[in-house]
């Protein structure tokens, strides 16, 4: 237990409210949280639960019109002093001298959190110069030292670079350097790795853990990812609708989760072998409609009417430091939190999907030596000075009815490949052949040369779902118009029939047909993605290219959408090309997985094989970067240094060789071809057979069994 001398920040009964036109939003509603010196506390929960507002309240940088309405934030820079941050005027000198110097903060979006108008060095050294009277020269030295500390290879050179010339990972490192440059006692990190690739995320997590130990700094880490929690936290607080519902050490909370919400979050993590994911019902209620009684009762599987909707549970101490806010833990409570038995069966990895060779099924789409190059234009007359080889010689087949996963770090050409199939880009070389009724039938379409009939048919049969469900929906059109447009353009329905079809589609994707005349902004992220799916589904397609369809969603909603995609697949015999950088998601939904690196396929295998017996070093590194939500599983991580190679100027030989830990001389001149190592497993590595690579660690199952120990 933490003694008061060890306490760095003591948040007591914090309330933050936003007065809005539709009433007061209670974003933070009585949070108590203690952060000890040198420890990491994670706050976890779905979006909109008040995590970010809590974090921002500490430095009083809440967006207008929010303000702290009650509570204290006792900060003890040294054991003898104690100041209530909540009582300081937000623009006053005292709070300013704490910001950046004693308490620093990093944010989710490394791009928009740095101004593109000033160099990295300018923005970092300014933090030093406002807090201590140092010369410009010294500030520069200290900035460069900080950049070096966060593992930036050429800090001198980076000092004078602008943020927009850096990759996401580099920018986030620069942000961290900026936060650390004054050696703060507390670092608040608001989802700092959410926008990054898995590999970069793993590097940043390792870096912060190392720095924390070195600098004896405390971390308050906000995240919605339980894998990150398991990786970095000492203590965890689970937040729901402005309140902490479960709190304890990371082992207590993740090994024996007690609150139904915590358990549900853990169960909804997509994983290999799981059939239907146990998604949490519905969405986080809008802050204007906070339920009475237990806040979670509208979505809780164990809620008991008459009790949970009336009585507001208090925080209940279970054992040293572990507490939970649920009525089932009140002594002599009639409530029992038992698993519905149906769950257990579906998690057997061998039932969910088969390793049967997909070759038995008809080929729906074949891609042959496809290249998509974009010219780089420079100089006075926009001369073409080179080519970005976004897709550089890719061949594969998609079988009818399968889900083919496509993974790789960002910038590897996944989206370009997807868009080329959709005819959004023209191939530079190579061929795409689509066989509407299977290859054997003989009717083929080449999207580069479609005849008049095919020009109508092709875009009906191949549809796309996008990552950003909001950006891809026209905000000025109602749902009826958005989905109906597709039917109208393709002459599939009109008038009453059109409306009937749209209602039917909405019901299929789990949207209430009452929403027919609403506009996109009235929907949550998950609902918008359902609209996007309905629109893709409207003309009865055969193949859907889904580009990161769940990456912007919370785990619980992600699980709902993944379940929906699986249901629709079996109902309409759909074929998916599923693009994602999240290997958990891909392992859950795919039959086969294709790994891409710098415009080429480096490995292609059935899911089970790929995750258990990867044979390409890049796949191995990707797998090792996947975080397990079990804190006791910490597989050795393979650090992938540097970024994805520049597709305009890929390294000679194997493009992966600068980052490959098995690279040999041969790899530097000779490009490995994609070749079969078994009839269903293709690898592009010279040493595929010789290498013994690590599979992905599997640990989620332990969580399944332990969670029903409790009441």
């Amino acid at each position: 237990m933490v003694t008061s001398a060890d306490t760095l920040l003591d948040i007591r009964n914090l309330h933050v409210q936003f007065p809005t036109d539709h009433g007061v939003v209670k974003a933070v509603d009585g949070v108590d949280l203690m952060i000890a010196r040198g420890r990491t506390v994670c706050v976890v929960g779905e979006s909109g639960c008040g995590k970010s507002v809590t974090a921002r309240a500490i430095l009083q940088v809440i967006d207008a019109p929010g303000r702290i309405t009650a509570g204290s934030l006792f900060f003890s820079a040294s054991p003898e002093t104690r100041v209530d941050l909540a009582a300081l005027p937000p623009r006053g000198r005292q709070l300013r001298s704490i910001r950046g110097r004693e308490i620093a903060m990093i944010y989710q979006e490394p791009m928009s959190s740095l101004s593109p108008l000033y160099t990295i060095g300018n923005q970092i050294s300014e933090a030093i110069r406002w807090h201590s009277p140092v010369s410009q020269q010294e500030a520069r030295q200290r900035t460069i030292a900080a950049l070096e500390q966060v593992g930036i290879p050429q800090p001198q050179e980076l000092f004078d670079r602008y943020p927009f010339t850096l990759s996401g990972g580099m920018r986030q490192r620069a942000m961290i350097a900026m936060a650390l440059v004054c050696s703060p006692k507390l670092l608040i990190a608001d989802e700092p790795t959410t926008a990054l690739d898995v590999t970069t995320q793993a590097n940043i997590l390792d870096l912060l853990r190392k720095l924390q130990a070195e600098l004896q700094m405390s971390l308050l880490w906000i995240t919605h990812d339980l894998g990150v929690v398991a990786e970095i936290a000492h203590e965890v607080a689970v937040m729901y609708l402005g309140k902490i519902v479960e709190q304890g050490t990371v082992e207590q909370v993740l090994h024996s989760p007690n609150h139904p919400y915590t358990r549900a979050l853990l169960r909804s993590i997509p994983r290999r072998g799981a059939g239907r994911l146990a998604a949490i019902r519905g969405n986080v209620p809008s802050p204007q409609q906070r339920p009475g009684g237990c806040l979670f009762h509208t979505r809780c599987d164990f809620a008991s009417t008459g009790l949970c909707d009336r009585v507001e549970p208090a925080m209940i101490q279970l054992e040293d430091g572990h507490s939970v806010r649920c009525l089932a833990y009140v002594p002599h409570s009639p409530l029992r939190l038992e698993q519905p038995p149906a769950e257990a069966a579906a998690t057997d990895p061998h039932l969910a999907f088969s390793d049967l060779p997909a070759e038995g099924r008809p080929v729906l789409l074949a891609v042959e030596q496809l290249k998509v190059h974009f010219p780089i234009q420079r100089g006075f007359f926009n001369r073409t000075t080179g080519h970005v080889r976004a897709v550089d010689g890719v061949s594969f087949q998609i079988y009818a009815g399968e889900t083919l996963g496509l993974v790789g770090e960002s910038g590897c050409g996944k989206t370009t490949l997807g868009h080329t199939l959709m005819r959004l880009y023209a191939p530079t070389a190579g061929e795409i052949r689509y066989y509407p009724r299977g290859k054997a039938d003989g009717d083929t379409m080449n999207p580069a040369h479609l005849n008049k009939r095919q020009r109508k048919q092709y875009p009906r049969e191949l549809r796309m779902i996008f990552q950003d469900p909001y950006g891809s929906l026209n905000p000025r059109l109602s749902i009826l118009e958005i989905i109906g447009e597709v039917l109208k353009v393709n002459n599939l329905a009109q008038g009453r029939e059109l409306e009937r079809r749209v209602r039917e589609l909405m019901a299929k994707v789990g949207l209430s047909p009452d929403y027919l005349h609403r506009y996109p902004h009235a929907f949550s992220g998950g609902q918008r993605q359902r609209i996007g799916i309905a629109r893709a589904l409207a003309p009865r397609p055969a193949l859907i290219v889904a580009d990161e369809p769940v990456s912007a969603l919370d785990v619980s909603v992600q699980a709902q959408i993944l379940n929906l995609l699986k249901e629709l697949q079996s109902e309409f015999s759909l074929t998916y090309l599923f693009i994602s950088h999240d290997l958990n998601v891909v392992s859950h939904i795919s039959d086969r997985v294709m790994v891409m690196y710098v415009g080429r396929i480096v490995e292609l295998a059935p899911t089970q094989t790929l995750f258990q017996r990867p044979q390409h070093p890049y796949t191995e590194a990707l797998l090792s970067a996947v975080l397990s939500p079990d804190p006791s599983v910490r597989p050795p991580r393979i650090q992938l240094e540097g970024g994805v190679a520049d597709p305009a100027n890929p390294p000679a030989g194997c493009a992966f060789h600068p980052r490959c830990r098995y690279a040999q001389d041969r790899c530097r001149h000779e490009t490995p071809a994609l070749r079969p190592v078994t009839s269903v497993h293709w690898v592009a590595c010279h040493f595929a057979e010789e290498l013994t690579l690590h599979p992905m660690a599997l640990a989620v199952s332990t969580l399944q069994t332990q969670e029903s120990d409790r009441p």
Partner: protein
Amino acid sequence: MVRYIVKRLLLMVPTLVAISIVSFTIINLPPGDFVDRIVAQRLTAGEAVTAQEAADLRAFYGLDRSVGEQYVVWVSNIFVRGDFGRSFRWDLPVRDLVWERMALTLLLSVSSLLFIWVVAIPIGIFSAVRRYSLGDYIATFLGFVGVSIPNFLLALVLMFISFRYFGQSVGGLFSPQYINAPWSLAKILDLLGHLWIPMIVLGTAGTASLVRTLRANLLDELSRPYVTTARTKGLPESWLIVKYPLRHALNPFVSDLNGIFVDLVSGSTIVAVVLSLQTTGPLLLDALRSEDMFLAGSFIMLMSMLAVVGTLFSDILLAWLDPRIRYR
């Protein structure tokens, strides 16, 4: 940055050539030429002009040569000797007519622009930072008045005020005794004394619309993550606003700077007529009416060049303001 500027300068060359061709062509569009007008004038005055006399006149003014030749002569004289040709109507070198007026036009435009910036930026910042305060409402109201009031009305009102309360001569950029006097310190002071009226007249609408644009831009920028980042670094609020959101908010405005500049140059014509200023506008109108082609052509060309230079200026400012542009 230097590379960028050199590149922009080189790109200007073809634009300038095009402008000179277009100016020359436009002037040649109306049927008939200057000599036809002289003939018509003499006829109305009762004098007969023989075909031989007309041909001689044409030869004298070079109007008998092909259009292409006339163009080449015109342009090469400009570049070689700074000779813009001769105004038929005033019987003076165009150069003598044009330079002083060009300089005054430029002075008026640049000072109006400075007036706009100096007045609008602080008000815009205030309005955005203290949104919905009394000051913001007053600024918004005055902004509406400023945009809707016609320039000529404002000109008349200010002229009245300056005459009534400051005892200045009405209209013009100079008091009568200085109009044809050589340049001296006294003449410059006199000019500055007269300059403020057209400056305010020309600047008011621009100021009002800049306040509104800046307020809107700044409100957008103030809620951006990089502002919060700067705040969490512990920067004082006023420093932070000028360094980060203001510079971002000026960006769309600077890219529009050229438009304002052109507006000023052309808008000043009407004001100049009302205020009887010796700027370019009235003279150009006159030249166009009397088909004084060398004068009109030179004017159009010089003003277009001013616009091109204005664009260059705003682009360079923009590139300085926003490094992303230099990297494109």
